[in-house]
């Protein structure tokens, strides 16, 4: 138990050092699919955050009852329940957004971030650590989605969250809001993150 990270470490790790998208390469389906605008990206990040928090807390509460060969079933059951709740709530209160996100809300059930956090953290650590982990990872996921969505929406439509930010003369790069734009943006941002990381490591080793 002693070598497991503390709640604070879990929280901080999720945001950048173990960012679910840029560092763990998890949850890439929504990352690529719903980042053509800031609003759907934020909604998706909030939905995943809610499901992750609820699933992590519940799994952590029942972690002493889990049997190794039945744990995945229980993770999936818990995740599917909260995803269905999110899906219904969106359809009831944010109908247009629910239509925009379409199948990607039900697809959170198979989002690897959540099942990974249940397995790595919630099924082994206290509720505090699991909750801190969920919040940290959700912020990390949200940052990743927002970073991609901002680039794609601005370059693709000249707007951000529906407001014009670039001059009208901007020739909208339509490809950025289409699927290839998701791969291009993700690849380039990934390269940027790795480049910054490489520089930092070099500096640290140079000094050390």
């Amino acid at each position, binding site marked *: 138990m002693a070598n497991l990270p503390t709640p604070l470490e879990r929280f901080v790790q999720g945001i950048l050092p173990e960012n679910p998208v840029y560092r763990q390469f998890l949850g890439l389906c929504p990352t690529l699919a719903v980042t053509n605008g800031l609003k759907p990206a934020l909604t998706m990040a909030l939905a995943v955050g809610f499901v992750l928090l609820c699933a992590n807390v519940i799994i952590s509460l029942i972690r*002493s009852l889990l*049997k190794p060969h*039945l744990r995945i*079933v229980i993770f999936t*059951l818990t995740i599917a329940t909260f995803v269905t*709740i999110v899906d*219904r*709530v969106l*359809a009831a209160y944010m109908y247009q957004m629910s239509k925009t996100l379409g199948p990607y809300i039900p697809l959170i059930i198979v989002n690897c971030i959540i099942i990974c956090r249940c397995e790595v953290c919630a099924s082994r650590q206290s509720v505090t650590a699991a909750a801190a982990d969920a919040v940290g990872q959700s912020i990390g996921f949200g940052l990743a989605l927002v970073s991609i969505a901002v680039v794609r929406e601005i370059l693709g439509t000249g707007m951000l969250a529906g407001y014009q930010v670039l001059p009208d003369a901007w020739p909208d790069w339509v490809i950025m809001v289409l699927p290839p734009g998701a791969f291009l943006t993700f690849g380039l941002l990934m390269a940027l993150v790795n480049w910054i990381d490489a520089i930092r490591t070099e500096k640290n080793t140079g000094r050390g």
Partner: protein
Amino acid sequence: MASAATPVNENRPAWLRDNHLFQAWLVLMLAIIFGTCLAAVHINLSDRIAENKLNESLERIPGLIWNEGQGGTSVDIVSGKIVVKKEDRTLYYPVFKVTDEGKLAGWVVKAAGQGYSGSIELLLGLNPAGDIISGLFILEQTETPGLGNKITFPDWLDQFPGQGTKAPLMVVKGGQTPPGAIDAITGATISSKSVVGIVNRAVSETRGLLTPEHIQFVERSQ
């Protein structure tokens, strides 16, 4: 921490310990609890979701009767359902009667059917006599993105308004569209045929029934 629960199991008789249902007690219990929660969520929200769907249909309806920019001054939409009696069963078509200043402006029929990868739900606008299509809108579909989902694009749907309903619409390939024919989307012939099929079936099944006597109108709550 996880080892704390193991000794309890050791005390149970072997037949109980090896029983799959007993091993899965937590799964079963969670399934019941979660199921109850979901039922509660559904009971609380289903009316609201149905209302959202209805409002979406209502918003689309004027565009299915009139061209963009035109339209009535005091439009009134009354919803109801057409009862279609077949030999062995009875079908219901949700229908909207559109009036403008008290005069009948057209009908909008909601129809659904099987597409290439899931069910397709659409709104079909007809003129007051029911013999000319005035508009078509796809409410729900799960066709292949990039191919089949082009059935929702206006440039494809624009082929429908003006078509007569005396004879079933045909699907043709290759861009030539004589009257009564719809050009199939390249790479999505099945999706195109599905939409045309749903339209043809809705037209033939509601033929002669688009009169107030055949429609059960819904009393409005307001």
